[in-house]
């Protein structure tokens, strides 16, 4: 083998003193200088990173370094030392790393998609009432802030009528804890259930209700969420999913979007089931209390009209209203339509709970499929970690 010689500097790994040396490469790598002699097997030689023309080599696992700038030697050395660029500490290969990382990522996503909701369903009934109560108080403060601090409606006669209605709906349904229902003055026709059996009815539901049964149906729907502890479950679920995903994925470009989208899909899928359960609960409750279960369908058609688009169906937290209305009417039965949950006097009192509300339009047109209504404003979807609403 043609010997190649060059000059360079050797560092002995003990001191930073450079020793001027002559390098001679045959089938061995020989380094000679004043007080320096090394003779290495070419298979043991490793190169550390350096910018050309500088080259830096040393035997594997040692701190001895030889630095040189000879172009001929730099060109020949990789040909004679097969493992020159090998890095023992990084064995395993990038492909294996990438595949394992993807597998780990998919596993975490599956846990977040299926494991966390399952766990939330198991954990929610186990949350002590006192803790849930505290949670509810905290969430109520936040929600009221988000809604723009709508004032409470506390007209005495209305409050009494509301309490009688709640008592009638709750009777014999075995709800956990004591239910607290409040009405707040707000221009959005919506209702919310928070942890700790707190139900907030926004006053516009009262305005839009043509019969007491319609208002009672929305209320009963919310009580359905109370019965299954949906708000606590969704709180545990969304915080668990968010915690898991954001912790594992860190915040490199793109992953925040994955996290947000994943969360929205997860919570939407599970909440659609929860909505259907709450609908069924509302119909049964109303029918049992002597009211009109089908009223839920007519009020939903008025305040939660579907948009035209079918896109994004998997992202919707609520099922389509026409689908809901059909199953509500079927469950309520044909004879439900004639019944009234409370007397007219109580209904008048209840509507007076927020003094000065605009009166409901007289019910000259009964809700009918033949007469298309102008599409109402689509309700803005909120962040998935909010309590279950209407």
């Amino acid at each position: 083998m043609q010997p190649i010689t060059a000059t360079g500097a050797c560092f002995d790994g003990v001191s930073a003193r450079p020793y001027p040396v002559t390098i001679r490469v045959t089938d061995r790598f020989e380094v000679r200088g004043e007080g320096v002699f090394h003779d290495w097997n070419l298979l043991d030689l490793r190169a550390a990173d350096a910018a050309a023309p500088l080259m830096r080599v040393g035997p594997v696992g040692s701190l001895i370094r030889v630095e040189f700038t000879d172009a001929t030697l730099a060109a020949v050395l990789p040909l004679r030392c097969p493992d020159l660029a090998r890095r023992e500490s990084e064995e395993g290969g990038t492909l294996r790393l990438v595949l394992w990382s993807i597998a780990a990522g998919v596993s975490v996503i599956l846990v977040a998609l299926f494991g966390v909701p399952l766990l939330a369903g198991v954990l929610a009934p186990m949350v002590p009432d006192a803790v849930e109560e505290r949670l509810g108080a905290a969430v109520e403060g936040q929600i009221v802030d988000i809604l723009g601090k709508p004032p409470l409606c506390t007209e005495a006669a209305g409050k009494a009528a509301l309490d009688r209605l709640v008592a009638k709906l709750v009777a014999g349904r075995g709800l956990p804890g004591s239910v607290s229902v409040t009405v707040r003055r707000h221009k959005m026709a919506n209702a919310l259930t928070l942890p700790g059996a707190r139900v907030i009815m926004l006053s516009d539901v009262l305005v839009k209700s043509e019969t007491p049964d319609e208002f009672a149906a929305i209320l009963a729907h919310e009580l359905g969420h109370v019965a299954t502890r949906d708000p606590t479950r969704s709180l545990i679920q969304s915080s668990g999913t968010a915690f898991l995903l954001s912790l594992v994925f860190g915040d490199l470009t793109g992953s925040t979007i994955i996290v947000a989208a994943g969360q929205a899909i997860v919570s939407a899928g599970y909440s659609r089931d929860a909505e259907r359960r709450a609908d069924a609960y509302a119909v049964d409750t109303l029918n049992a209390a002597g009211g009109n279960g089908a009223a839920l369908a007519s009020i939903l058609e008025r305040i939660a009209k579907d948009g035209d688009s079918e896109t994004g169906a998997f992202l919707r937290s609520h099922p389509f209203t026409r689908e809901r209305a059909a199953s509500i009417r079927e469950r309520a039965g044909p004879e439900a339509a004639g019944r009234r949950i409370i007397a007219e006097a109580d209904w008048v009192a209840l509507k007076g709970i927020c003094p000065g509300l605009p009166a409901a339009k007289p019910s000259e047109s009964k809700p009918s499929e033949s007469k298309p209504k102008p599409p109402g404003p689509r309700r803005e979807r909120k962040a998935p970690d909010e309590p279950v609403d209407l």
Partner: protein
Amino acid sequence: MESVAGHIDGAPRPSGAITFDRSLKGLTGIAVKGFLLSLITFGIYRFWYITNLRRYFWSRTTVDGSPGEYTGTGKELFLGFLVALAILVPIYIAIFALSLMSPALAAFGGVLSFVILYLLGQYAIYRGRRYRASRTLWRGIRLGQDGSAWAYAGMAAGWSLLTVVTLGLAFPFMRASLERYRIRHTLIGTARMDSTARGTQLLPYWLVFYGVVLLPLLAAAAYFLVAAGFKIPTDLMVAKPGKPGDFIMNPTYAGTPVATALTVLGFIGPVGVIAALLLIPFYRARETRLFMNAASLGSVTLSSTLRARQFYWPYIVYFLSILGFFLVIVLVFLGLGLLIGLGGGREPGGFSAVHALLLFTTLAAYLGAGLLFAVLYVRIIQARLWAAVAESTQVHGTEALAQIVASSRAPASGLNEGLADALDVGGALQIGF
């Protein structure tokens, strides 16, 4: 006297120079691979990406003719991150549970977690530096760092408190004090570095920043407090009529000094942010120069000629590149929008090929932007700032470098840096010291 730089034949280099290979050959490849693989591995590849970047930057920087060498591995960083998760998850859960169980503590939950995470963050910064030092070789000599990370975190917390109490005036003294602690616990082999950095040296530059950015803000805030009688009125902001969630100033305050103060504050705030962005590179450059000049190793000293403009240029170039990219994107989307406007009018709501093109372009633009910015950030900001600091620094008394002797202590554990990454304090893509 042996000139160390002369040991390599070829072009004679001025002895004691620190150089950086500005050609940046191969850096784009590392950044592209790092970004794309990080994306598809849910970010796990970032530890290997950082390792590759560090190996590149270390090996392209020569001190007195010899390049540095980074011997850390991605696996070490990843394991450290997993261990850090094991420590952090219980802490997060404990804080959450504590604030839930005890309403009295709930009000302090935010403060409590901030204090805990701040201390842990400073601890992690120091431990991360220790890891990087112990994975750095120069002429076969391992660097190291001793000292206590908890002592460092305690110092940082104390100084931060003092900085808040003195309305920011103690800041340069904090910086100098922490720099002294870091440098005085940095070892090259067995040789210990020293720093004579003093807060008073930094004070003039800090006062420039302070006078332009912080003082007007503080003055406006003080004016507001005085006008409001030292208590912030709870009904200052009210819901906008008809728009829940939107807030406007309570009309009853119109014309009062409170409203004037609020307007002044609203004007000075944004101006202060812009001024701060413009002045931070200036302060950082001055600080780096001072810290470099203050550092020494026995009779070996450093001198820096770093100019503030060397710190401004990379940011300006980066900013202009981003601006140019967005201009192109806007033009492309305007063109596509025009196409839809012309072609899609006949069938409203239809999903035409143009819509598909729009969706595809959006996705491509998003990914392309991410990739481009990642590459530009590494090539322009990181590489140029690194080059500016390296090349403006000169080592004096290099003959004494030959006396450095390797230390027998074991290199620091690879678990040191994981916490910094898990806490997002300088872990991600942190390549300097």
